[in-house]
Structures are given as C-alpha cells and as structure tokens.
C-alpha cells in the first residue's frame, strides 16, 4: 500500500527511484524546501545581509529558486533582486520574460530585464545568423553562456550584489561534469562547483542552491506549488553537445537511478585534487575594451565581438 512515509497520507505524488521514499504533496514541498535551505547552510552559500541577484528566466528552476530565496528575504536574512536576460530568441524568450515579471511582482521582488541588444548591439538570433548556420547553431550555447556570464557580472556589480544565484539543477551539473570530462576540458572542470571561488573582487560570487535537486523534482515542485512557469525548451539547445550528453545520462538513469548523485559526489571528491594540479592561477586583470575581469587582454565576450567586427 502506498502512503506518505512522513505523515501517512495515501495520496502520494512521488516515489523516489533513488531512495524508495514516498511523499504526499505537502511533505514533498516541505522536504524539498528543507533540503535546499539545508544545502545553503551546509555549503555556506549565503550569509546574513547578502544582497542576492537571482537570474530569473521564468523557467521552472529559477522560479522555484525565487520561491525559496523569497522565504529568506521575508525573514530579513537577505536582500533579493531578480534579473531576466533577454538574449533575443524570437518566439521563445518573450513568454519567459512575462512569466518572470509576474512571479517577481507577485512576491514584491525588484525585477529588471536586460538585453543582449543593449549591451552587445545584437541579439542571439543575430549572432547565430552571422555564423555559418550549422556551426552557429552548434555553438549557440557557448556564445549565449559567455554573454550571459558577462551581463550577470556587470549587473551584479552595478547593483551592488554580493552573490549571484542561479537555478542550475542536478541534471545540469552532472551534464557539465560529464561533458567537460569527455571533451578533456580539465580547466573547465576545476571551475564546476556549488559556489564559485573569487579570483578577482570584480567577479561576484556565484551560487547554485538547487545543485543537488534532480530536474524532475524541480518540475514536480513547481506543479505542486502551482507556480507560474514557462515550460518550453530553448530552440537552440537541442543541437548542442550538452543536450546529447544530457539524453545519454537520462537514459542511463532509468536503470541506474542514483547515477547523477554518484557522478556529482565523485566529482566533488576529486575536485580539490584537480584544482591543485590543473588550476591555472593566472593573474586576473581587466579587459582593455570593457573593463570586465579577464586573464587575457580581452575578455571572451569582447574577443567574439571584435572577431565578428573584423570579418
């Protein structure tokens, strides 16, 4: 007989494959919130008085994180502000922005929308169409990632934020680990973690409070909490190497439900060694063009932009 392991309610909404735990709606919501808050304490992600900038796309991960971080704001532990990046992905991003705005407004959280266009003079759609189509689509996530990181860091500094919080989940993080390993990007591996280590005071510390929550549980959480969420996939994501790796891991997880946890745990154990052996402690300067921190003459965003100008 199925009933909630915590309260005995016969209406369960999840039977966790990895642990066998069965939970009703209320106990699932409570236990998920507690897990995230526990991780925030355990990994020391937030301190009292932090001014947190949340990347709010309107998707399930960031909407869930807003819901949970807002409880800390209400208890006057942190200040919270949300920023939505409009990359300029026609037919996809518009709805996410509206949903992000509605969520922030409902909770009374300050919200700002910033665009690729205003900072870089072009949208992600422009960037992709500038490139050879196949090549451009394949690299969409790379360009998008570089420009998003640039904007987050700039906005965080402008707003006086002390932490940048993003909704990366267990699936995302496991994908990053396996993907970078398969590609031999050991440098990138040394930078994966629940909290970034600052190499420059011009970089704002980034935290990932949902890093140990599986994507499926985040989806269940937002449906159970009846949150307003943009359920849609980015039109460029499907063709990325990341998506291929993601599908591969999801497929494996069907028969091996603990595989994402073990990948993450194993990686976190190896990471200090990786850092010690492979982390390049280069001196961080500032980009000649935009003033953002970088180890090279130009930051990655400016490198792409000047390459395209010179074409």
């Amino acid at each position, binding site marked *: 007989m199925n009933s909630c392991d915590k309260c005995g309610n016969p209406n369960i909404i999840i039977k966790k494959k990895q642990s066998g735990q069965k939970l009703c709606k209320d106990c699932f919501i409570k236990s998920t919130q507690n897990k995230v808050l526990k991780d925030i304490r355990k990994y020391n992600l937030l301190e009292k008085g932090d001014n947190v900038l949340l990347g709010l796309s309107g998707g399930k991960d960031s909407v869930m994180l807003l819901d949970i971080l807002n409880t800390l704001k209400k208890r006057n532990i942190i200040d919270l502000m949300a920023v939505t990046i409009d990359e300029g992905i026609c037919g996809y991003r518009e709805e996410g922005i509206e949903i992000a705005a509605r969520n922030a407004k409902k909770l009374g959280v300050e919200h700002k929308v910033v665009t690729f266009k205003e900072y870089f003079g072009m949208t992600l759609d422009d960037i992709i169409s500038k490139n050879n189509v196949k090549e451009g689509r394949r690299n969409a996530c790379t360009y998008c990632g570089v420009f998003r990181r640039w904007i987050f860091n700039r906005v965080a500094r402008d707003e006086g934020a002390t932490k940048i919080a993003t909704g990366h989940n267990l699936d995302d993080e496991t994908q990053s680990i396996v993907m970078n390993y398969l590609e031999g990007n050991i440098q990138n591996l040394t930078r994966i973690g629940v909290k970034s280590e600052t190499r420059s005071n011009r970089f704002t510390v980034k935290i990932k409070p949902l890093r140990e929550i599986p994507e499926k549980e985040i989806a269940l959480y937002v449906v159970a909490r009846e949150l307003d969420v943009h359920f849609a996939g980015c039109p460029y*994501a499907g063709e990325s190497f990341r998506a291929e790796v993601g599908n591969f891991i999801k497929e494996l997880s069907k028969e091996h439900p603990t595989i994402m946890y073990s990948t993450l745990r194993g990686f976190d154990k190896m990471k200090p060694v990786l850092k010690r052996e492979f982390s390049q402690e280069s001196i961080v300067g500032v980009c000649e063009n935009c003033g953002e921190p970088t180890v090279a003459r130009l930051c990655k965003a400016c490198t792409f932009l000047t390459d395209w100008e010179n074409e």
Partner: protein
Amino acid sequence: MKIKLIIGEKEELIEISENKTVKNLLDIIDIASETVVVKKNDFIVIDEEIIEDGDLIEVIQVIYGG
C-alpha cells in the same frame, strides 16, 4: 472505458481498456514518463496510479530538450 485526456492545449476523449496505469497510458501515447507530471482529476499522481472510467487525465510536459 472512456477517459478525457489533456495534453497542453489539446483535449480529447479516448478509449482505453480497464486496469491501465498512468505509465501504461503514457507508453500507449508514446510520451516518456521522465519528462511529464501527470494529474488525475486535478491531483498529481504517480506512474503506477490506476486509471478508472471517466477520469480526467492531464499530462503536463515539464522537461524539454533532446
């Protein structure tokens, strides 16, 4: 028996045999259960929930990509 099935904007009455679970239904309509949350008569249910005559089944696509 007949049930009402809602997937996104699409709503239809379909015929299925007795004693099918939510998982059986998802297999029939070829949707991966890992990518959806299913509600039966407005309540979230797990894969092994039995579907009964006249049930309203809503399939919410929650995971994209791939």
